[in-house]
């Protein structure tokens, strides 16, 4: 009895999670211009509007460009740091971890306002570089956490074996370690990209008109009146998110299989 009640309640909550998103997706294919059902007809006019507009398309490019650059920067800094943290112990490690993970817990409004104040005098407000640096800082904890998780399954003896065979530390890392943790690195990069793609508050405060990202543009659209073009943009962002989710699920599956493979090899 109790089992059935929990089951039904759980399914209802799952429906609550999905329903609002599923409810708005079909609206973007409406032939009319109202945001409710029934649809007067099906058309792609709002997508044509999106791709023909002077601000939505640049916003999409900005999102991809800034997200890509921020993810690249976060990965470039995060992977060596994760490797270093993996070998560190004690208080120094705890302190470093605290700094690295801080962007995950500090309310993003504090980051946004602080960066507005700090970037103003050095000319980084309303520049792509400023937003990329900010988004890289917000995305880097996800890279470090993901890479550290994949290093859990890596056997450090292999590095000593490589050293014994005459490989330098850099060569040993690149040829022995990196290939084994590659899925984790890729998943971390996707996490960082998704963080940037999702981020709106920092963009709201430090981006200029030339750096408007897709969420920033949507926020502006939502603030005056919701158009169906906004619904089309939302649908495309949902599509992008689903792709990223599938990418990470696939990469994490690969990483897990690889770890299991390594574990059976060792036995």
């Amino acid at each position, binding site marked *: 009895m109790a089992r059935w009640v*929990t*089951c039904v*309640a*759980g399914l209802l*909550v*799952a429906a*609550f*999670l*999905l329903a*609002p*998103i599923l*409810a*708005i997706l079909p609206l973007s294919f409406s032939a009319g211009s109202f945001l*409710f*059902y029934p649809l007067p007809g099906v058309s792609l006019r709002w997508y044509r509007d999106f791709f023909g507009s002077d601000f939505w398309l640049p916003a999409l490019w900005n999102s991809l460009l800034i997200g890509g650059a921020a993810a690249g920067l976060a990965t470039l*800094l*995060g992977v*060596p*740091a994760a490797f270093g*943290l993996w*070998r*560190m*112990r004690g208080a120094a490690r705890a302190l*470093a*971890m605290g*700094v*690295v993970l*801080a962007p*995950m*817990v*500090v*309310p*993003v*409004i*504090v*980051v946004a*306002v*602080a960066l*507005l*104040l*700090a970037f103003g005098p050095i000319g980084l407000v309303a520049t792509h570089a400023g937003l990329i*640096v*900010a988004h890289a800082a917000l995305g880097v*904890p996800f890279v470090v*956490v993901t890479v550290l998780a994949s290093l859990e399954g890596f056997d450090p003896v292999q590095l000593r074996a490589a050293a014994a065979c005459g490989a330098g530390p850099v060569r040993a890392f690149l040829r022995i370690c990196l290939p084994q943790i590659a899925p984790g690195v890729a998943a971390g990069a996707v996490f960082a990209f*998704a963080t940037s*793609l999702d981020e*709106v*508050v920092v963009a709201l*405060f430090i981006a200029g008109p030339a750096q408007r990202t897709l*969420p920033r543009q*949507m*926020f502006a659209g*939502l603030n005056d009146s919701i158009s169906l073009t906004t*619904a089309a943009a*939302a649908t495309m*962002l*949902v599509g992008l*998110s*689903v792709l990223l989710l599938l990418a990470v699920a696939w990469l994490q599956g690969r990483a897990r299989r690889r770890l299991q493979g390594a574990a059976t090899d060792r036995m």
Partner: protein
Amino acid sequence: MTRAPRLSAALLVTPLLTFLLLSFVAPIGAFLWRGVTDAEVAPVLPRTVAALAGWDGRAAPDDAAFAALVDDLREARARERAAGAGGIARAAARLNADRPGFRGLLPMTARRIEAPFDGPARAAVLAISEEWGDPETWGAIRRAGGPLSAFHVLAAVDLRRDAEGAVRAVPPDQRVFGQVLLRSLWISLLVTAACLALGWPLAWLVATTRGWAATLLLGAVMLPFWISLVVRTAAWMVLLQREGVVNAALGAFGIGPLPLMMNRFAVVLAMVHILLPFMVLPLVAAFRGLDPALPRAAASLGATPWRVFRRVILPLCLPGIAAGCILVFIQALGFYVTPALLGGPSDQMMAWFVGFYATRSVNWGLAAALSLLLLLAVGVCVALYGRLAGFRRPGTA
């Protein structure tokens, strides 16, 4: 491990730490520093601030302070003519935050005191404005003299010092932030409780299901987790607005339209929807870690279902429950976008006021003091999380 590898490990972390120090730690530190310091008034009125150091604050200060004010303002005007800086305006804006009227009073006094006058400085200054006879006017200057100052932090909790230096509550009609802080805590608490109530059955279902159904259910939790916060807020706007999906559906039954948006209900509903995955994922981990034999053993020993739940399931899952609650609470506390889009003026949380004071009413000190309060609350929660769930667990992120 030998010394060399440990050194190289530290070297590998250095680039990232340097990057975060420059792009994250230092900017936030510099911003928060403004919440506990005052740097606008002392450069413009250095002699006045010095002259007020020994003043008792009961009546207008002695002639030396008036003379110092005249000297300071004349010098500041001369400097502005030469270099064109906005020092007087910045000092006036800071003093205005303490005592309304200063924004006009200080520049006007500076302009008019430049004309030569006979007799004591006190009479000349008082002739420009009676305000200079009020000890509170001078108290505002002394309070803003810096370098360290509790003014902004006190203001952020609806307190202020009077001219004599005693801490008092501001008049009831000017109290804002105590209410904002309580409102933020209350909304976050409400959202956390609702997430726990809704997340529990879903997490139980996910944890006890096997095979493709479990994958599907987990997907239903993960998908919203990945979709942009703005998109999810937009979805609720489309559903709840006056000519939205829900009202159109209700209209078909002859109900409404109901005002579903721009209120507390909409804010809490959307926040619960957005934060629910952060509750469900730790709960699933906790339930999966629960040995199913234990509740069964308790039941076979004669415990009622309620007793099994209270004495066996709840204590064993407590770390997971605490982790989920704290994760949701921390994030709810800092919410900006959702209340801004779905709430009315009385539903805005701390974050909105930080943004407001930083940009629209340029008062960095107050914005920084509010941020300090926000970070303090988050810090307490993180410490709790560390104690209850431990930092070794990777969490949901």
